């Protein structure tokens, strides 16, 4: 494509409010390269009832077309990236992508991105897997493509509760899959659990945690079931098929997760995430600290140069990307320094390490900064927030109230 046609195309897209962030980011000479990449693989064998990610059961065998398109998009985005520190492939169910397509995808990443940190053992390359769709073959492909971390969706070890979630796998497949991962030479494994499933007792959760922590894993994500809007789970709740877990029990469950994880040598480093020392998920920490990341694949969200946007979430629309390989985007938010402060407050307070407040509040005017500090004092007085050496951290009782505290801090910023 000549420069002229590229420019006219850009103008068209500009008019459609698409793609501006990427153009802007590209236009800044000498800007440091982005070091994190998120890749979204939308395929699933079955839609779980709690899931609100973009995913579907593909009946038209579009994996090949999707992979080609994804490779094209990644190649277009590559000029934005510097040496890559973290890659996270989520979904959907990335392990459903055929091994040969994985091979192509990984080869192209090697070709178009600077993965040198991985050679020094510095990078983190995570792929989400479903226990029943991992195979020796697939794991071999992933391993040789640089993947060094697997996030395994276990959710529960109780068949009854899995059924409530419409999560269709055999609990026994989880330890088998983890062993396969280990045998493939991938040295880090994270397991996902969901708790506060309708009908689940504290004992049931203890059972799940025992099973999860008995496996050779370094990382545990343990989420309270969230009733996301427009999910089957929320509709079923609305129709009275089951009742929500009482708040008191949810709190007990949260505390049980913390206690058992700690006993097993894990530490909570985010509201729902636990890791053995040094095994925190660096990719997710990039989200929570509002670093930059590139996003590829339908519905994937990016944060580059202060812009937030999301790729178009429909596979069909995604497949017909533009001539340059970029995807159409939706939900674009242009850079806004105040918004960034709000976002950092919101996600930073969820972290054990807390927030470096002094440097953060420098981005606000004096009146706003003062109000934020005053509001923080109220929560400090309530024993929900503590300040040490210029950092704000939530106390154990404050962690459970993180949204309310963040909301209050945000609300005083004019």
């Amino acid at each position, binding site marked *: 494509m000549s420069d002229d046609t590229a420019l006219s195309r850009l103008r068209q897209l500009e008019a459609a409010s698409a793609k501006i962030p990427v153009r802007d980011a590209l236009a800044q000479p000498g800007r440091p390269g982005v070091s994190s990449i998120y890749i979204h693989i939308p395929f699933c064998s079955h839609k779980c009832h709690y899931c609100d990610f973009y995913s579907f059961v593909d009946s038209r065998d579009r994996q090949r077309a999707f992979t080609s398109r994804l490779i094209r998009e990644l190649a277009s985005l590559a000029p934005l990236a510097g040496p890559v520190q973290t890659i996270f492939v989520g979904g959907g169910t990335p392990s459903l992508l055929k091994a040969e397509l994985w091979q192509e995808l990984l080869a192209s990443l090697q070709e178009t991105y600077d993965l040198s940190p991985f050679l020094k053992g510095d990078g983190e390359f995570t792929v989400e897997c479903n226990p029943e769709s991992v195979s020796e073959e697939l794991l071999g492909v992933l391993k040789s493509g640089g993947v060094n971390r697997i996030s395994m969706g276990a959710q529960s070890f109780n068949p009854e509760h899995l059924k409530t979630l419409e999560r269709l796998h055999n609990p026994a497949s989880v330890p088998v899959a983890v062993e396969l991962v280990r045998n493939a030479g991938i040295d880090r494994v994270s397991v996902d659990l969901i708790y506060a499933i309708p009908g689940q007792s504290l004992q049931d959760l203890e059972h799940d945690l025992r099973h999860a922590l008995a496996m050779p894993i370094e990382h545990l994500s343990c989420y309270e079931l969230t009733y996301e809007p427009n999910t089957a789970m929320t509709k079923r709740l609305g129709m009275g098929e089951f009742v929500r877990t009482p708040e008191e029990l949810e709190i007990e469950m*949260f505390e049980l997760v913390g206690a058992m994880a700690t006993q097993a040598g894990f530490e909570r480093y985010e509201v729902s995430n636990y890791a053995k020392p040094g095994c925190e998920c660096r990719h997710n920490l990039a989200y929570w600290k509002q670093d930059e990341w590139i996003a590829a694949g339908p519905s994937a*969200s990016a944060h580059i140069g202060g812009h937030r946007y999301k790729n178009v979430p429909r596979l069909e629309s995604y497949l017909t990307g533009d001539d340059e390989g970029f995807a159409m985007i939706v939900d674009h938010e242009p850079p806004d320094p105040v918004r960034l402060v709000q*976002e950092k407050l919101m996600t930073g307070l969820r972290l054990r390490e807390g927030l470096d407040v002094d440097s953060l509040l420098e981005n606000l005017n004096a009146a706003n900064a003062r109000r934020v500090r005053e509001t923080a004092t109220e929560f400090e007085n309530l024993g929900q927030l503590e300040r040490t050496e210029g950092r704000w951290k939530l106390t154990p009782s404050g962690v459970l*109230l*993180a*949204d*309310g505290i963040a909301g209050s801090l945000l609300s005083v910023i004019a």
Partner: protein
Amino acid sequence: MNIRNFSIIAHIDHGKSTLADRLLQATKAVSDREAKAQLLDSMDLERERGITIKASAVTVMHEHNGERYMLNFIDTPGHVDFGYEVSRALKACEGALLIVDAAQGVEAQTVVNAYLAIEQDLEIIPVLNKIDLPGARPDEIAMEVEQVLGFAAEDCVLCSAKSGVGIPELLDEICERFPGPRQAQTPKTRALIFDAVYDDYRGVIVYCRVFDGRLKVGDKIRMMGLGRTFTITELGKYTPKPQKVKEVGTGETCYLVASIKTLGDVRVGDTITIDHDPAEEALSGYEPPRQMVFCDFYPATNSDKKGNDFEALREAMEKLSLNDASFTFQTVHSEALGFGYRCGFLGLLHMDIIQERLEREGDVEIVQTAPTVSYKVEVRGKEGATEEIEVHNPADLPDMGSIIAIKEPIAKVEVMVPKEYIGDVMKLALDRRGIFTGQTFVSDARDMLTFEIPLAELIYDFYDKLKGLTAGYGTMDYEINEYRTDRLVKVDVLINGDPVEALAVIVHKEKSEQRGRQLLVRLKKQIPRHQFEIPLQCAIGGKIIARETIKGFRKNVTAKCYGGDVTRKRKLLEKQKKGKERMKTIGTVNIPQEAFMAVLDVGDE
């Protein structure tokens, strides 16, 4: 010429307007076709609610025994909220038709209205209406009339305004039994204003009854009470179409137009005289309108902070006040609700009507606080002198230390009730600090109970409770009798330790704990949970009399927050922020606007 000035008084829906129309029709004042619509009521609202808000007077000519009679119908508001206006209208008459529904029987309002007519020394003809209804029991109801009101049962005139049965006989009775107007007592002109309405084109239209002398077009008149003068530009009578006349003589009624700009320049009950040749004394009985019930109106929406909603409300209030001089309003500012108006009304019905008219005619949405009554408070003034001040907002109550006594308005309440419910009604009345003063036999099925009940208790859901207890059959009416001292206290409400003035209430000492608890239970439902525990307390002076607690959140955290969730989550938190903007922050507690309404709202839990 023979003149008969009379009113029609009745309980709501006992057929007053229909009867009036039928009488007009029978005198050929209106055609049969015109009679289809009720003529005397002019406002939509009146027709919908089946009540007459503003009186009018209609003059028709009738022939009886070969003589001509001028019949002046003076319509009255049917509700004692307008008791003073009713009494002025009745004062303009010599007779009254007391309409009783032959199926429903004597109702509380019938009794109160009949007493008003008796007080004015009017000749009363009891009329049993709707005798053609399947459920009509004219004989029994005639006995009720005799029992309760003391008119001989055989003196009742039976009719059906709907079918016209008995109407000619009623006209005969009007001519024969009602006396003519009294002779003039002075050559100077004296006319009683018994009503006034505002007309967009002609200004105020005054309805009056000439007692002495005469009125002519071009006369410069003086309102003896207010002292204002005007020149009559038009005199006339409604027949029921307006018909201009040059002059009006002693004993007649008329309307007059005199370039009067607002209703504030005219007082019902005032006496009109001739400016250059005035009467020495006004006709007796003039009183300014007396507001008994108070509440605040605030604009319901506060969409833009420039206060445009308040402006719209102000315009609507001012426009309505041209039409109704009997409610008062003044600007108030509530910390919780912003700018609004504190309004005084003649009674509860009057309050409802004003609110409806503001919303309907002014196209504004109103948030209304719970009604309160007007208290007379005796306070120690300077150098030991005692002063009496009027307080209708608990927040305005002076320091308890300086208060000698708080007096509250006491209503004389008549309740007409089927006998099987007497016990329940007694209990209700006594529970509302009522004093039982009498029980009258009405019929085998019903009795009339009389109580004295503080108005403050009456406006607190008494009527709804009465209807509920009596399967809808109980009826009541009341008049304000007097002010009486009682052990009234101001109950303060403390939220998280801070007193909230807008929530304070004046209640009886013995009821204070119960009311306090009810109030806190409601408040608890309205205030959202916070990150911390919020104590709610009621206190008298410094003493806590009731307490509730809003538990703090123990958990308010989203499980997942990843790259794609940031925007949505931030928007959710911003939404909470927007919600908070509509709340009033007291200390560190956010209180929604609704809480100020709900806790003051009437009714038990």
